[in-house]
């Protein structure tokens, strides 16, 4: 019994009407790296957030170091030597690295902060675990990889012996991952225990000692790494054999639909500023932009769609110059766009599904004559689209906020695909979407391609890029690293370019004439 430093038994957690966790089991041995895996919405993140005290739980037992814990708060979790690194970093942009690390645990000189002693302590961690950070820089001045190291040092500084890492490798390239795993092994050697939440099976197989699988809020099984493999894990995660590789039809390529020439645009971070990107998309093909999130893809798409100022360069849609024109005008010329954040951009959560479906044509006939809206037309149109795209529940009057992730995405896809533009931009189309919806969305994308439209696909999911694209463009730090045809592309050469390097494989592809390096 005492070999487990964390024991979570029979955990139940409901959010209003949603059962996030209905049979949660998890235990952690001292000094192990234990992966907690499952699809989006499986409940793994929720389980750990409960352990760290961010959510209260409805029933069950939690024991840490043998001690039963009832109402946990983050403060108590920290007191019990639990630390958590969240998917979205809990770092305050305007404060420095140092200030963020000591927040809440500041070394004091009476009521003032003892900055000198803080600096000394942090240097110890930098030296011990070989984690390179710059204490005096502000968070909005450092890279994502460094921010993650700051988060880890923060948990160590607070005395964590148990580290919970929520999807840490989502922001790292394959090669940065290797460095990250070295750090994890250093921590393990030092006696720390790690919970590694992920859905990336290859990494999980590489780093874990034990693996726990959750599916739809329920515990499935716990296995030792030695006794399993990725296929097995996938089956446990999904509950059925998974074939996500939709057959890629050979593209019938026509005229140029999108031409981007030497585009420069602003960026939220230094490394996501677009500096001189050119690309083309022809009708009948899917061009996939591969790259880790945060390398400028969002900004690039926004610039094309008229949602961000183009500072230099031109964008031509079907021959017409759309640089810096209004989003409305650009849509008229033929752009349709599935945005990467359906809650922020794609939908108006407080309005009905009906109004969301008709949003881009709300003031055109037949949905309006002058300023008078024609409700019947809007209703009929929406009912039809809902049926065609299998949106559930199927009430056009229902508010968009009542939709699940997958169905909400279907509404956005329905609207954009129905608008029948010349170019469809699909940005992170499978993010936060259940497997059933993913399959149907990918099918739809292929149908759109077959009907002669051009598609610009942007995805941080390399598997998605590889399975859908005819041509792959890799974006890294605001520039194009290289272009490669689908036949010559694989995880290694594309992954290499995603982190800014050029592999020997990619070099070979260049020699064979299939790839272009920028």
């Amino acid at each position, binding site marked *: 019994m005492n070999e487990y430093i964390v024991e979570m038994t029979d955990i139940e957690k409901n959010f209003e009407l949603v059962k996030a966790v209905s049979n949660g089991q998890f235990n952690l041995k001292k000094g192990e790296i234990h992966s907690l895996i499952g699809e989006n919405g499986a409940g793994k993140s929720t389980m750990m957030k409960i352990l760290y005290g961010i959510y209260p739980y409805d029933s069950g037992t939690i024991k840490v170091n043998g001690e039963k814990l009832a109402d946990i708060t983050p403060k108590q979790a*920290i007191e019990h030597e639990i630390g958590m690194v*969240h998917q979205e970093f*809990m*770092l305050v942009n305007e*404060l420095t690295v140092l200030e963020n690390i000591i*927040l809440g645990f500041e070394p004091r000189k009476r009521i003032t*902060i003892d900055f000198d002693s803080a600096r000394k302590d942090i240097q110890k961690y930098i030296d011990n675990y070989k984690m390179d950070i710059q204490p005096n820089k502000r968070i909005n001045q450092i890279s994502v990889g460094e921010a993650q190291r700051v988060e880890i040092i923060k948990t160590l500084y607070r005395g964590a012996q148990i580290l919970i890492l929520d999807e840490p490798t989502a922001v790292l390239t394959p090669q940065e991952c290797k460095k990250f795993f070295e750090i994890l092994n250093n921590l393990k050697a030092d006696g720390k225990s790690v919970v590694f939440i992920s859905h990336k099976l290859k990494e999980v197989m590489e780093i874990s000692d034990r693996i726990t699988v959750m599916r739809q809020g329920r515990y499935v099984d716990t296995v030792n790494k030695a006794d399993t493999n990725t296929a097995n894990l996938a089956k446990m995660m999904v509950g059925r054999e998974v074939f996500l590789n939709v057959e890629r039809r050979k593209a019938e390529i026509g005229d140029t639909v999108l031409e981007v020439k030497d585009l420069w*645009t602003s*960026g939220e971070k230094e490394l996501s500023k677009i500096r001189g990107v050119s690309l083309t998309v022809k009708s009948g093909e899917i061009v996939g932009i591969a790259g880790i999130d945060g390398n400028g893809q969002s900004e690039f798409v926004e610039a094309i769609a008229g949602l961000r100022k183009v*500072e230099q360069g031109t964008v031509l849609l079907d021959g017409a110059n759309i640089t810096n024109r209004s989003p409305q005008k650009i849509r008229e010329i033929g752009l349709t766009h599935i945005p990467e954040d359906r809650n922020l951009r794609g939908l108006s959560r407080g309005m009905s599904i009906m109004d969301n479906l008709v949003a881009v044509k709300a003031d055109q006939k037949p949905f309006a004559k002058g300023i008078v809206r024609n409700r019947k037309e809007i209703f009929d149109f929406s009912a039809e689209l809902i049926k065609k795209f299998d949106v559930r529940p199927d009430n056009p009057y229902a508010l968009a906020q009542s939709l699940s992730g997958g169905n909400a995405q279907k509404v956005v896809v329905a609207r954009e695909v129905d608008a029948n533009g010349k170019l469809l931009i699909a940005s992170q189309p499978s993010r936060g979407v259940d497997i059933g919806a993913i399959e149907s969305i990918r099918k739809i994308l292929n149908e759109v391609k077959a009907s002669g439209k051009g598609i610009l696909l942007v995805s941080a999911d390399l598997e998605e890029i590889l399975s859908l694209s005819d041509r792959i463009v890799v974006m890294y730090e605001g520039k194009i690293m290289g272009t490669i045809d689908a036949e010559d592309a694989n995880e290694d050469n594309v992954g290499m370019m995603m982190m800014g390097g050029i592999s020997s494989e990619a070099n070979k592809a260049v020699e064979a004439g299939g790839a272009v390096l920028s």
Partner: protein
Amino acid sequence: MDFSSIFDYTLIYATIRAATPILFAALAAVITQQADIINIGTEGIMLTGAFTAVCVSYFTGSWVLALLAAMIAGVVMAMIMATAHIKYKADICAIGTAINIFALAITKFGIKQFLGTSGSFTNPRIIAIPKIHISIFDSNKYLNGLLNNWSLMEIFGIVMVFMITFMLYRTVWGLRLRSVGRFPMAAKTAGINVNRMKYQVMVISGILGGMAGAHLSIGYSQMFTENMTNGRGFMGVAAMFFGSANPMLAWIGCLLFGLTDSIGGRLQAYGWPSQFVLMMPYIITIFVLTVSLWRKSVREAKIKSSLLTEQL
């Protein structure tokens, strides 16, 4: 128009004098802004403080009690706002406006009920906040004009600027507050009680707002008029925006308003219509607000621009 009689050395003290009530209001707004709370109710807190100060000073003859009572009244108003906003999720602009209206109503009621009149109340029995008189300065025209006869509050106001700056940027409490205002979730996961900090800043804001009102009614003058704050609470909020919630910079904003106010008064002597003169502080405030937010957007655009920054 004789420029030298408008812009002379006495303008310096006049500016500080006119800026002081706005300064306390600005500091009240600054401290809550650091927790991401826009204290629109500063006007109402000030008004309540002004009335309470006059009332208590009139009935007890003690400016100390009056000042204390004003601070308590400010805290009461601030706590109503805080509870409504933090516990009951009231929109901050809505509850702020509600408090302002509430203050108008209860002071109107109070002036009738407790002081037996309406409109305005003045009485020699009202004891004012004392001024610091340094007799050796009396002989020298410049020293007298610049440094003599300062109200206690005026000195205290400047002291508060430095105190709050220190509190925000050097203490543990200040660091935690700044994180609460900028990224509450990060503060929460660090074990900080976000709501408790929000209540704390509202209390401080109430104290400062009450002091602002007290200075207005028993420091600046010795009377209470209905709606005597007349927008000064909002000027304080504007000064806060001007300084991006930094106390020192907000102080500069207040001095700017005080300057405009004082110059305006002098221009009136030259036959400028009173309404234009009275308008000026408000127009300058709007202008200053706009400029500071415009500059902020330009700064942000520069930082984000791909053209200007050096490549890493």
